[in-house]
């Protein structure tokens, strides 16, 4: 007994001397930039004369967006048969594109909400543009299910509004859950984005007012709600922001879970699996970070934002892609294992068919883009090569589109009875409509870059070393 007490006393004495290594925190704003520098830099982007490259990009984006407009106009005028859907594949590119865009949106909410709760301060320089990306991605996603209805003027039947048939929506269907999930997601994302922007809109209002641009000051001021930077307001504001982050986190997880229920609740082999919700959420974050990098890296290069989006930020994003990409790879493997382990012949066939059937090429693209590509991010030299990171992030986007295509098309094309098998290929109208959504997205994003603060100015100032009131006191 006494021996044990001695040992523990010794251990305490030694532990008292052990100190964890002091590892310097990564610098989130390079070159020790001042508060004013941050304001000038971010506001300057929206205040300067419209650059020539912006007009070129905007023109190209409008042209690409016109493909969606043309595709949809033709669909509404003719009927939903202009898409390549036919039995047995009555759900294809529309739902593939929907899930693809919604998934991209998820990284924005992840950065703004989950990383906020986890106190990951590196989120501050990318959260604004990622949230913008979320909203624009939800806009693009919404186009597909709404127009797949065919008679789009009945889209309001999705919502619980009284109609002349006196019938209500069927709340037992995951598709109806999806209506609520996606519309809540869109609304809360806009609210979160806007609330985060209020102090920065006030900054822009004050800057326009001090150079005498009254009209602009009034417009920005209207949306800034008379924000004056009061500490009493900040206290309530920070609490509200924290709660919004707190509710957005379960929201973002639930949205993609419900999207996966669209499939998992059915009885189709390859869809009817319990792994879908976590697998879809990981895939969504994976694809979303791919898109964040695809957008943030050119923005960083064009506007010389290296001091705000530092190598540390790029490293963090690459590592998130690596982690979620590996999870997705694990899910692919586990699906195969369970298909074999369940001894269900339909389930087993579906997976063999996915990898070696008529859609083998799509499966091959999916695995090489989603499982192999992110593994390059193990290497520091890869993460430091911005061009290479951009290319790899682009592959992630491609791979995630194919993932949804593989899941949806292969399962539907060859289900139970060989007599009802088929092969799906998209019509030109579908291809145009999907291609055009990249234009819609780019148009919205370019307008955002031109008129709004692309980074959270107030939050960036709060993570600079000079903003820390304890600086030099040795505690945090």
């Amino acid at each position, binding site marked *: 007994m006494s021996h044990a007490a001695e040992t523990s006393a010794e251990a305490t004495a030694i532990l008292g001397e052990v100190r964890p290594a002091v590892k310097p925190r990564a610098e989130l704003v390079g070159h020790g930039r001042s508060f004013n520098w941050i304001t000038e830099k971010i506001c300057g982007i929206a205040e300067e004369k419209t650059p020539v490259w912006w007009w070129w990009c905007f023109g190209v984006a409008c042209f690409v967006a016109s493909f969606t407009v043309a595709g949809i106009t033709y669909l509404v005028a003719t009927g939903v048969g202009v898409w390549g859907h036919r039995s047995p594949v009555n759900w294809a590119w529309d739902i593939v594109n929907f899930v693809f865009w919604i998934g991209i949106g998820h990284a924005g909410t992840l950065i703004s909400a989950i990383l906020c709760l986890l106190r990951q301060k590196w989120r501050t320089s990318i959260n604004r543009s990622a949230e913008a990306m979320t909203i624009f991605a939800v806009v693009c996603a919404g186009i597909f299910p709404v127009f797949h209805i065919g008679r789009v003027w009945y889209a309001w039947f999705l919502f619980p509004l009284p109609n002349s048939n006196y019938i209500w929506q069927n709340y037992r269907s995951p598709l109806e859950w999806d209506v609520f999930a996606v519309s809540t997601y869109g609304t809360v994302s806009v609210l979160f984005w806007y609330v985060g922007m209020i102090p920065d809109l006030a900054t822009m209002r004050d800057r326009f007012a001090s150079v005498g641009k009254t009209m602009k000051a009034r417009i920005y001021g209207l949306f800034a709600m008379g924000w004056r930077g009061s*500490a009493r307001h900040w206290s309530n504001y920070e609490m509200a922001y924290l709660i919004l982050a707190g509710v957005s986190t379960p929201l973002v997880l639930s949205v993609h879970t419900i999207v996966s229920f669209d499939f998992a609740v059915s009885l189709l082999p390859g869809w009817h699996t319990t792994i879908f919700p976590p697998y879809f959420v990981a895939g969504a974050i994976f694809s979303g970070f791919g898109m964040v990098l695809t957008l943030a890296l050119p923005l960083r290069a064009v506007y010389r934002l290296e001091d705000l989006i530092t190598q540390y930020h790029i490293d963090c994003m690459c590592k998130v892609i690596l982690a979620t990409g590996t999870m997705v790879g694990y899910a692919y493997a586990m699906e195969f294992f369970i298909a074999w382990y369940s001894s269900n012949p339909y389930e087993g066939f579906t997976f063999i068919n996915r990898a070696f059937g008529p859609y083998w090429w799509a499966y091959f693209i999916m695995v090489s883009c989603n499982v192999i590509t992110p593994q390059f991010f193990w290497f520091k030299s890869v993460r430091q090569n911005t061009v290479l990171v951009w290319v790899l992030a682009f592959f992630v986007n491609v791979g995630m589109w194919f993932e949804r295509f593989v899941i949806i098309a292969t399962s539907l094309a060859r289900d139970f009875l060989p007599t009802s098998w088929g092969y799906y290929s998209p019509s030109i109208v579908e291809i145009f409509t999907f291609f055009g959504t990249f234009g819609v997205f780019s148009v919205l994003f370019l307008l955002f870059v031109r008129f709004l603060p692309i980074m959270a100015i107030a939050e960036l100032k709060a993570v600079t070393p000079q903003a820390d009131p304890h600086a030099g006191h040795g505690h945090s």
Partner: protein
Amino acid sequence: MHAAQQVRDAGYRRWDCITPFPVHGLDGAMGLGRSKVPRFSLAGGITGFCTGMAMIFYMDRFDYALTVGGKPFFSPLFAFPVSYELTILFTAFATIGGMFFVNSLPMHHHPVLHYDKIRRGTDDLFFIVIERSDTRFDAATTRALLAQAGGTDITELEG
């Protein structure tokens, strides 16, 4: 921060700090209590969840009971996803509405908004504002307090 503590200790009630970003620990230095916004959020969340459940019960069980695949007309299980989303939706609106309400925003006519230099309060300067309606306000002593607390450029505002 220390200036804010001095003003607080001098016993002022109707005063404020203007800062370009939320300063960590300033609410403590000003003697502010915990924000009341979460109360609005909780009320919103409860309302949202009850709305979802009640709406689905009314529609699918009471108003027009529809048989689909022999499933029950109402069960809290299938009503849960929609109620869950409405909980979040209502919480978000209540939080933001509550924040605006507690902060008395939007208010576009506050006197400090008409003070030229305050415009840098959203850029890189820090201000302390003491209102004349405060019971302890006295032009000379207040000015002296602010000067002693390290204030430069002390101005009286009309409004």
